[in-house]
Each structure stands twice: as C-alpha cells, then as structure tokens.
C-alpha cells in the first residue's frame, strides 16, 4: 500500500468516527442542496443547459490546440506576456522568476486551486516572498497552515469559534465570533495588503478563446483588488479552462454559481484581457498569464477519460458525494478531493500511488448525476481500477477472483460452497468480530446474515 493510501485509511477512520464533523458537513451541504435546487429550478430547461455545457466543453477540449492558440493571440495582442509550463516545477520557477524580476517582496493572491496543485505558496515563501491569500476562506485556512478543505468552500469545516480562535492567535484581533465582525477584521488586514503588494496572483475560472480573456468569478471582490491594485498581475491556469466564445459565459457563469454554491450568479464576474492599455485609468502595468499542463495532456490523450478535462471545478461532485461527506476534504491528501479527485489525481500524480482514491468509492453515481458538464465520473473510477490492476495486479486478489469463476459458475462447486459455508458459520461465533475473523472487515461493525437452511437453488431442485 502506498504511503498516501495508508494515510488516507488512517484519516478516514478518524473522520468517519468524528460525529461532530459528520453533523457539521451534512448540515452545511444539506443547506447547499436546498439552495442549489432552488436555483436549478430557475433554469427554463436545466437538463438542456447541462447538455449544452457538456457539448461546449467537448468542443473546447477536442480542439484545444486551436482554441489555446486563439486565446493566446488575443492576450498577446494587448501586451500580455504568456508563458507555457509543462510541469509544476516549471510553473513555480516561472512565477518565482517574474516576481524576482520585479524586485517585489509582497504578493497578494486570490483563490486558485491550480496554485494549490503546484504548491505555489510554499515555493514563493521559500524564495523569500510574503504571500497573503485574499479570499476569506483561504485567508482563514492560511492562518491555520492548512490546505483548503473544499475546492469552493475552503474553510467549511471550521466553526465560527475556531475562526475566532485563529484570528485571536495570529492577528490578535477577534472582538467576537460574529461572522460580520470577523469579516471586518479580515478586511482591515487585507486592505493594507492590497496596497502594499507589488504583485497580485489570480487563478481563472474560464479562458475565453475568441476574445483572449480570462474570466474570474468570486463573491468578495478580493480577486478584483488583487488584480487591480498591484503593479504586476500574474494569472495561473490549467490549459483545460478554455471555452470557445464569450457568449458561452452566458451559460457557464450562472451554471457555475448554481451548482457550485447554490447561487443565481456569483457576486463578481470579471474579465481580464491584458495590462492597462493607453488611456485607461487603472489595471496592472504588466500582465503575465501562465498556462499549466501538469499531465493534463495525458488526460487529453486518454480518449476514454478525456471528458475529465471538461471540469469547471464547481465542486458539485464533492458536495453530493457520500464518501466526501463522511471523510471530509483533508482526508484525500490531494488538491482535488472527492470524485473528480479520484478520477484525475491518478493521472496527475501517478496511478499506483493514488489508485486508492479511485477505489474509495461505492460507485453510487451521485457525482455523475450532479456534474454540470456531464463527466462520466463514476465510470472513470471503474476504468482507473481496471487500469491499475492491469498494470500491477495484487497477487492474492487476482488469485481469488480467478478461483471465483469456477466456484460461482459450477453447479457442484457452488453446492460445496453452500454446504461448507454452513459448517464454517457454526464455528464463526468463536471468532466473530475479532481480528482473527476472516470476515473481520465486515464483522467488526456489521453482523453477517446466516446462510439459509435451504438455499434458493436447493429449493428449486426440490421442485424439479
């Protein structure tokens, strides 16, 4: 078992036994579901919209080379410097290099999962820069030295009391645990940071090919300040963020807000096309866009799972996932948790090391049903399992399943299993629920049903 898998198991055991955590997450996501459904109902034809969104992303991903080219040409025409990074290391080096070139010391950053993916903050801090997260949830988890718990709601695992505590400890300012007052504390701190920072880093929700613009969605106005106040702006995004046309955002912005946060539309939706142009009053002097591959092209090359690149990082699959809801976001130990993480992490970070994320699913399909761009998530988890065992089967499992075929398919063998099972069952109480029990993984928490005195097949034979 890989180190990551062992850690996952250990953390999953701890979190599933934490009833306070269960209550907190079930309640929060239960409320989300209500709001999501209210807003879904406002679509004239939600299923039609979903189909259109899936087709639009299909078009973008299946012509990614052309659309990226168009996107970049548009940006460059307005003086944006575009950089291509094949690996996470290249992306980190590029960004550190840009910041160094500006003789900057302080960076303010808005929410970007792609930056989490390449561990950008650590790299920048190691290079001697101060990086401050400006999204409130990210600001809170940064104060706690934690990764985000959820790709849309980074601090959803924290109570207001815990937030007050960390503000008190790190900022020495927490008048009460009232959300409004805590927000005002964060605002006071962050306003100074925006003014001091020489560089602002953002992510992107969409990359619009025909106009050569990035689209950033947020609810706090922090990304706007991050982009507008510092002299240099850097945007890091994965190459899969492309949508072909500006008009596509007419669907994607409300879609993202609805399934991502249960909102009609997010508070702020901003387009950035380049640095400040002659005659413009504001905006950065320099605008850098860093396009990241980091194994996305491996997913692109996989015809079976290419649609995983449709993902708009809305978090809808996490929110409905009963596994996510029980083990929580940190347990996954990776940037993208939940079903989408189980699908793409083995591609991004190695199949054998991360295959447990494809296995830790009951394959219930709630994710596939929730996905606004129709990624076939549950089935991709199955394919990852198939690929993992093909590449490196487990000896005993392969043997067990090989043995299973003649046993399950043979009349006599099955009769034997039935009879031996009855005998084994008589002895079972001696071991039941104890670590020596061969069925311990079941019987530790659940009873096993008894084999019936007369099986169906035995009954059927009496009728013949």
């Amino acid at each position, binding site marked *: 078992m890989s180190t990551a898998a062992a850690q996952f*198991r250990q953390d*999953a*055991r701890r979190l*599933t*036994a934490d009833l306070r955590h*269960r209550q907190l997450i*079930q309640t929060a996501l*239960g409320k989300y579901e209500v709001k999501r459904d209210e807003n879904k109902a406002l679509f004239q034809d939600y299923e039609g919209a979903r189909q259109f969104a899936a087709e639009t992303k299909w078009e973008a991903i299946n012509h990614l080379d052309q659309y990226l080219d168009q996107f970049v040409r548009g940006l460059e025409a307005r003086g944006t410097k575009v950089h291509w990074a094949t690996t996470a290391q290249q992306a980190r080096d590029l960004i550190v290099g840009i910041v160094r070139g500006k003789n900057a010391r302080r960076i303010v950053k808005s929410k970007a999962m792609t930056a989490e993916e390449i561990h950008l903050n650590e790299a920048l801090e190691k290079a001697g820069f101060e990086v401050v997260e400006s999204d409130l949830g990210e600001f809170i988890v940064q104060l706690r030295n934690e990764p985000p718990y959820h790709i849309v709601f980074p601090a959803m695992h924290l109570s207001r009391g815990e937030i007050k505590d960390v503000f008190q400890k790190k900022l020495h300012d927490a008048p009460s645990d009232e959300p409004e007052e805590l927000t005002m504390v964060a605002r006071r701190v962050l306003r100074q940071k925006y003014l001091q920072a020489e560089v602002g880093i953002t992510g992107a929700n969409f990359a619009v090919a025909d106009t050569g613009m990035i689209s950033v969605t947020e609810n706090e106005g922090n990304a706007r300040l991050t982009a507008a106040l510092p002299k240099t702006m850097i945007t890091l995004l994965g190459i899969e963020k492309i949508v072909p046309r500006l008009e596509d955002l007419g669907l994607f912005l409300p879609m993202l807000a609805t399934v991502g946060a249960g909102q009609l539309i997010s508070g702020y939706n901003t387009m950035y096309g380049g640095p400040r142009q002659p005659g413009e009053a504001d905006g950065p002097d320099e605008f850098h866009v860093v396009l990241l591959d980091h194994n996305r092209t491996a997913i692109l090359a996989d015809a079976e799972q290419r649609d995983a690149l449709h993902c708009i990082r809305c978090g809808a699959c996490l929110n409905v996932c*009963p*596994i996510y809801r*029980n083990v929580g976001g940190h347990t996954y130990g990776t940037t993208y948790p939940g079903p989408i993480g189980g699908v793409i992490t083995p591609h991004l970070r190695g199949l054998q090391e991360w295959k447990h994320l494809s*296995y*830790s*699913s*009951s*394959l*219930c*399909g*709630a994710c*596939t*049903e929730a996905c606004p761009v129709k990624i076939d998530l*549950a*089935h991709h988890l*199955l394919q990852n*399992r198939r*690929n993992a*065992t*093909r590449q490196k*089967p487990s000896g005993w*499992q*392969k043997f067990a*399943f*090989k043995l*299973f*075929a003649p046993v*399950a*398919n*043979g*009349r006599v063998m*099955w009769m034997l299993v*039935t009879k031996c*099972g009855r005998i084994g069952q008589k002895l079972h109480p001696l071991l039941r629920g104890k670590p020596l029990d061969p069925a311990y*993984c*079941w019987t*530790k*928490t*659940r*009873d*096993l*049903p*008894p084999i*019936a005195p*007369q*099986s*169906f*097949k*035995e*009954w*059927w*034979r009496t009728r013949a």
Partner: protein
Amino acid sequence: MTVTLFIPCFIDLFYPQVGVAMVRILERLGHRVVCPEAPACCGQPAFNTGYWDESRAVAEKVLEQLKDAEVVVIASGSCGAMMKVFYPDLFVGTPHAPLAKAVAAKCYEFSQFLVDKLGVTDLGARFPHKVTYHDGCHSLREMQIHTAPRKLMAKVGGLELVEMKQTVCCGFGGTFSAKFPAISTAMGEVKCDLALETDAEYLVSIDSSCLMHLQGLIDRQGKKLKTINLAEILVQS
C-alpha cells in the same frame, strides 16, 4: 412467456425467500419460470475491483446460459445493472460482444419487469405497515428504476410509504464495503438515520445487497428498523 430468473449468489445463500417470492408471483401471473442452475454470480465483484479478465470468465458463463432466454429477470438491481449496462462495456472488442449486447437487451430487474414489460402494478398484496424505500444506486442511476417499485407499493393494501428526505447511497458498494469498512459503516449509519427519521417500521428495497449491509448494521447497533425486499411484500396476501 417463459421467464429466465437469475438468482445472484447472495440471494441464493442468504435470502432464498426473495427468489421464491419472485417465482410464485411470476407463476401466479401465468408465466413459466426457468432458472439456470449453474451461474450464481454475474461477475460484478471482480469487475468493480478492476479485474476485468477474471470478471469476463464469470460473465461468459452467464451469457452462455442466458443466450436462448426469451427474457431474463434478475433478482437484484445491482446485478441487473452489471448485466444490462456493464456487460456491453466489459466485452467490448471481444468475440462475446454481440452476445453481451443481445443478452443485455432482454435483461430486466424484477420490479422493472413487472411494471415496464408486463404492465402489472396491482398484485393484490397486503402489507399493513409503514415503510420507507431505499433506491439502490445501481438500480436508480444505471438502470433508471425509480417509479416501478413505487407504483407497485402504491397498490399494496395497507402499505404506507414515507419517503426519506434525501436520496443517498447506503455505503455497501460491493468490495468497497470490505476495503473501506469505516467509510462504508459511516455511510450506513447516515442512511439508517434518514430511514429512522421517517418513523417507518420497514426499509424496503429491490436490492438485497444494500439491505444485507444495512441489516447487518441494524442488528449490531440494535436500531429499531427492519429491512425487507419488495418481492417479499408483493407475495403477501
């Protein structure tokens, strides 16, 4: 009609009464029931664990047994999904591909067969109890079975159906329940809490594998809830 009934391994060993109920109901409706003796498994455990070659070895036998069937009725939504939805994927590019498709096309889960194929909803059953219904995920999302069991329950005398406030997986998930028992158990607890909230006496499903997991948890934790397969209700008069 001659109905070929497929009895999955866990129904055979643990819940024979479910299969017996199905035979009685189908015969009462005037159909001839045949039941191939040999295959006891559809191959889903190996398939879901990633061992597709081993799964195919099991499934090939099933296909051979069912190739001449007029219709196949499966005593489980999950195994039904394996045969109807996943066999074509499993056999793609193999000599069995056309047969897998042909068999898949004539597969039905039991309640789906009654309602969608036969157009029967009223079996004259009586079950004077308050119940809630668990949608097995494969039944619901792979087989698209949602209304059929509810239509059947609506015609059962004395039965009162109270829906749970959320449709969510019970946590069984086949080999998942053994590979990740802590997660599976927590999911089962969430499911039981939802069922208990309805104040129902019985938790009904067309998926005995889900019920095996839930009943195991109920028995261990002494919860006030009983599980029952829909066929067992429909056979009562």
